[in-house]
């Protein structure tokens, strides 16, 4: 803070030298007089010398002070502790982010923060100042809905006193019930909201904002720099630009402590995208050392629970391989291999030995284990003959006979697709299907946009007009709203045959062949295919090696799912590929590529809304990690679509969330359809909350200095610290002093002169 309202005028302090200069100039200006009675003059001078010097000094001092005070009057100094800034409202921002839940031998920082907040509320009530409390992790919520507690006294004092006592009791109870959140503090959003509110209030309304926090560097600064994060900078700039600094006073109560050791679980994941029963997979746990020192002998374990119970109750515990050491700032991934014998959802909790911040010593994951990826083959040209139908080669490729699990479970249908056909299906294959009609169209679109995979093999049965209705975007409309991402052309025949070559061997469906010499994909197996023009949203995954490099496989996203157009047939009408060994491998890989990743969709970060596609007519409720039930309403996700999804934003606590789907009864439903369905989600903490490095008061003050923010920063929890830190002007007192000094100077000059 500048200490003067008009610091530039301090240049006038140079004038303070004027009396001294004038004094010496006067000494040089004199008359010369011959004098006879020198003895008397000298005697008088000797006697007077000390008195005259003192008088001169006193007058000089007064005149210099007069000028200094005059300059100060116009420069208008601001003195801490003299301000008459009085709050009309107090807002306590309670940093409930989990980093504040540090444990020390004397208690947790969170308890201290809670005590501080209680003091602030009690003080505000004592001063009859309305007080409100907001949680730092929920910037847009009404916080504890406490409202003002201290109405200004009016005539009905007794009644008000009772109301105030009741209200303050409620507030204090509410504060005592606050629990640490697993979300970070959203400083920028808090400030943005504050700016909006204050900007809409009367200009005379003053708010003091008490921020009770642990003041960690990562909450305020950009990376390793000493500059605020861009969004924080923008908020402070708004305060400055809207000239709100006089209406906002920040009391920053720093409860942070020096950085202590902290080892944390930053991630839990599985090696397989589609875990299936009987197939071994690795559970990987990432451990980070956010300490400033080397950490050694880190032990941990993995706890697992089946999804049948309503809360997490570990039934299996596996020890993690001990980590010998982790250097400061580094992270290490340890893994254990396991195998699931039953198709189910498994709840996994990775946990380390407790340190000073126990909350981040655990992390959660949901693993959805299936019997296999379920594939539906819709045969558009079925035949009773062996391998005579369109789906026969593909069925054999995806579900070979024998006991060895392929991880893919395929079934074949023909004719119209029904809603029930798509239950639990991961990938849908349309094989030379003539048309998609009526409800079929909607079912397929919903299936893909809900995350399912669609593979379309062409053939002579395909109705070009029907296809075109799915492939032609509306005039000037977006291409990604059509199901098929390519326009079909005429059929082409290659007598000699051509090969289908992957565009990129890093592609998920082809990477299995990466690095192999003489890839089976090089074989010229394809004799006929269509000319095809991919849309802009589409990518070509593989092309024929004909002269035009005709696209062979085209893919595009659609909603949450993926679509792949195979420019060939699934039987041997257009190629010999179905009988080639590569057919089995490539198609199995394509199934895995197109299939939805259930586990990733169910593992969220705290604060990230829980979303789920809902079924019409069903009711949904979410149980949070503490077992509290929350009713959830569905909302439409896209305009014009009948698809609906629910959104549950309050995932502030890390842990497992249970989404329960129930049939309310009344309408006709089969027993299977109306049974309750449970879906589990895991919410994980953000790792930035585990970095405990404090910001440092000096750096925070330096950063704040440029914004003209009125603030008081300290570790003390005294309630009136802010008022005491308030800057006030003293120019009026200085003006009185100038008058006083002037009068004194005039009197003394006259008095000394008359002697």
């Amino acid at each position, binding site marked *: 803070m500048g200490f003067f309202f008009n610091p530039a005028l301090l240049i006038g302090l140079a004038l303070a030298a004027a009396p001294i200069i004038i004094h010496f100039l*006067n*000494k040089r*200006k*004199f*008359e*010369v*007089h*011959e*004098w*006879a*009675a*020198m*003895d*008397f*003059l*000298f*005697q*008088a*001078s000797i*006697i*007077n010398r000390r008195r*005259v010097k003192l*008088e001169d000094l006193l007058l000089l001092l007064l005149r210099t002070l007069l000028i200094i005070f005059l300059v100060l009057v116009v420069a208008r100094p601001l003195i801490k502790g003299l301000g008459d800034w009085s709050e009309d409202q107090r807002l306590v921002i309670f940093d409930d982010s989990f980093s504040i839940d540090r444990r020390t031998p004397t208690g947790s920082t969170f308890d201290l923060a809670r005590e501080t907040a209680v003091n602030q509320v009690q003080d505000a009530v004592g001063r009859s100042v309305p007080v409100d409390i907001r949680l730092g992790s929920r910037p847009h919520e009404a916080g504890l809905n406490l409202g003002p507690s201290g109405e200004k006294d009016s005539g009905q004092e007794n009644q008000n006193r009772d109301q105030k006592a009741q209200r303050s009791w409620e507030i204090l109870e509410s504060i005592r019930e606050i629990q640490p959140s697993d979300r970070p503090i959203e400083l920028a959003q808090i400030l943005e909201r504050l700016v909006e509110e204050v900007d809409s209030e009367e200009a005379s309304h003053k708010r003091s904002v008490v921020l009770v926090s642990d003041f960690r560097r990562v909450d305020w600064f950009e990376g390793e720099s000493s500059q605020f994060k861009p969004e924080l900078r923008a908020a402070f700039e708004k305060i400055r630009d809207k000239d709100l600094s006089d209406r906002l006073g920040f009391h920053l109560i720093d409860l942070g402590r020096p950085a202590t050791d902290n080892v944390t679980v930053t991630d839990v994941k599985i090696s397989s995208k589609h875990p299936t029963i009987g197939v071994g997979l690795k559970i990987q746990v990432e451990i980070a050392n956010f300490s400033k020192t080397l950490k050694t002998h880190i032990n941990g374990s993995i706890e697992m629970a089946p999804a049948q119970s309503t809360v997490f109750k570990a039934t299996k515990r596996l020890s993690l391989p001990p980590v010998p050491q982790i250097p400061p700032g580094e992270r290490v991934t340890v893994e254990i291999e396991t195998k699931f014998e039953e198709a189910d959802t498994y709840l996994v909790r990775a946990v380390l030995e407790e340190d000073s911040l126990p909350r981040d010593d655990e992390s959660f994951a949901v693993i959805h284990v299936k019997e296999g990826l379920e594939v539906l083959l819709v045969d558009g040209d079925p035949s009773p003959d062996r391998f005579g139908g369109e789906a026969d080669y593909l069925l054999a490729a995806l579900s070979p006979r024998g006991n060895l699990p392929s991880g893919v479970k395929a079934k074949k249908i023909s004719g119209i697709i029904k809603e029930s056909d798509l239950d639990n299906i991961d990938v849908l294959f349309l094989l030379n299907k003539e048309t998609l009609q009526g409800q079929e169209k909607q079912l397929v679109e919903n299936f893909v946009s809900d995350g399912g995979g669609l593979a379309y093999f062409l053939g002579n049965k395909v109705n070009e007009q029907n296809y075109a209705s799915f492939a032609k975007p509306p005039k000037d409309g977006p291409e990604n709203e059509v199901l098929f991402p390519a326009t079909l052309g005429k059929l082409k025949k290659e007598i000699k045959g051509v090969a289908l070559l992957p565009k990129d061997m890093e592609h998920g469906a082809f990477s299995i062949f990466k690095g192999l010499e003489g890839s089976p994909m090089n074989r010229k197996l394809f004799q006929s295919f269509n000319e095809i023009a991919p849309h802009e949203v589409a990518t070509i995954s593989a092309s024929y090696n004909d002269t035009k490099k005709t696209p062979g496989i085209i893919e595009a996203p659609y909603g949450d799912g993926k679509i792949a157009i195979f420019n060939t047939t699934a039987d041997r009408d257009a190629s010999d590929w179905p009988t080639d060994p590569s057919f089995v491998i490539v198609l199995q890989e394509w199934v895995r590529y197109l299939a939805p990743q259930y586990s990733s969709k169910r593992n969220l970060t705290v604060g990230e809304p829980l979303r789920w596609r809902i079924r019409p007519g069903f009711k949904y409720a979410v149980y949070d990690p503490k077992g509290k039930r929350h009713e959830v309403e569905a909302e439409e996700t896209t305009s014009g679509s009948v698809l609906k999804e629910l959104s549950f934003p309050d995932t502030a606590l890390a842990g497992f969330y249970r989404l329960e789907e129930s049939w309310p009864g009344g309408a006709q439903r089969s027993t299977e359809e109306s049974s309750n369905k449970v879906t589990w989600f895991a919410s994980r903490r953000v790792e930035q909350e585990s970095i405990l490095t404090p910001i440092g008061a000096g750096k925070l003050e330096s950063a704040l200095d440029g914004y003209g923010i009125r603030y008081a920063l300290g570790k003390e929890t005294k309630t009136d610290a802010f008022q005491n830190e308030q800057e006030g002007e003293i120019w009026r007192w200085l003006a009185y002093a100038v008058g006083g000094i002037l009068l004194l100077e005039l009197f003394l000059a006259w008095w*000394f*002169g*008359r*002697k």
Partner: protein
Amino acid sequence: MPPRGKFFDSELIARLTRMELTARRMVDGFLSGKNKSNRHGFSVEFVEHREYVPGDDLRHLDWKVLGRLDRYYIKRYEEETNITAFLLIDSSRSMHYGSKEITKFEAAATAGAGLAYLLNRQRDSVGMALFDENIREYFPPSVKLVSLASMVAKLQDTEPQGKSSFTDVLQSIAARLRKRCLFILLSDFFVDQEDVEAGLKYLHYNGHDALVLQVLDDAELTFPFKNNTLFKGMEDKRELLTEPPRLKDRYLELLQEFLDSVEKLCQKTAFDYQLLEAGQPLGPALTGLLAARARQQRLIKRGGS
């Protein structure tokens, strides 16, 4: 007619001629004049009768008394003699100071010339000396008018300079005169007070009378300076830069102490003292002094008879 010269102030002389300057104490004179001699004899002034005794000079027999009373009485007369007055005028550099039209020296010269003329009119002999640390000019006592004229001429030609000293000068002049005189001292007395005291005491113990006329300038008495002033000593090289208003009170106190001390010294030695202010009319001060002396003279006479 008085001699011509700038120090003959006609108004002053007119005032002074109305007064008589007589020695309060009896001093020897070598001409009969208005001052009585301590030697009785047969002279002009009758004092008393005594009975005739054989051997008395019959010239002093009072024939009128013999005719009326038929008894022989001899007249007794008090011898009347001239005063020998000696002007001592300080001509040191400090006497050159004058804030108005005239300097202290000029004022002293005017007063001295006036008194000399008065004495000369009374047929008293008048001498004069101008002195600083030494006797600069010496005029032996004389009743001749031409001598007075020479003294006045010398006063006109004199430029005050040097320091002043009293004891040596007074002793030296008293030694030259060899008889009791009326000394008229005109000075600012800005010298060592012990020197002044020693000089005056010397005169007193040697039976001299003295008129002590202290001549000061108006500025010295009132110290009217306002602005910063560098005061330069007139008789030495001392300098003092000061704000006069800040010193004034103290200076005036010291000056007053000094004046009082000179006056007290005069009282102690039974000399008359008068402060003369240069630039102010001298007549009133001198006539006042002479009137006071005349009164004292009469009182002495009555007491003596």
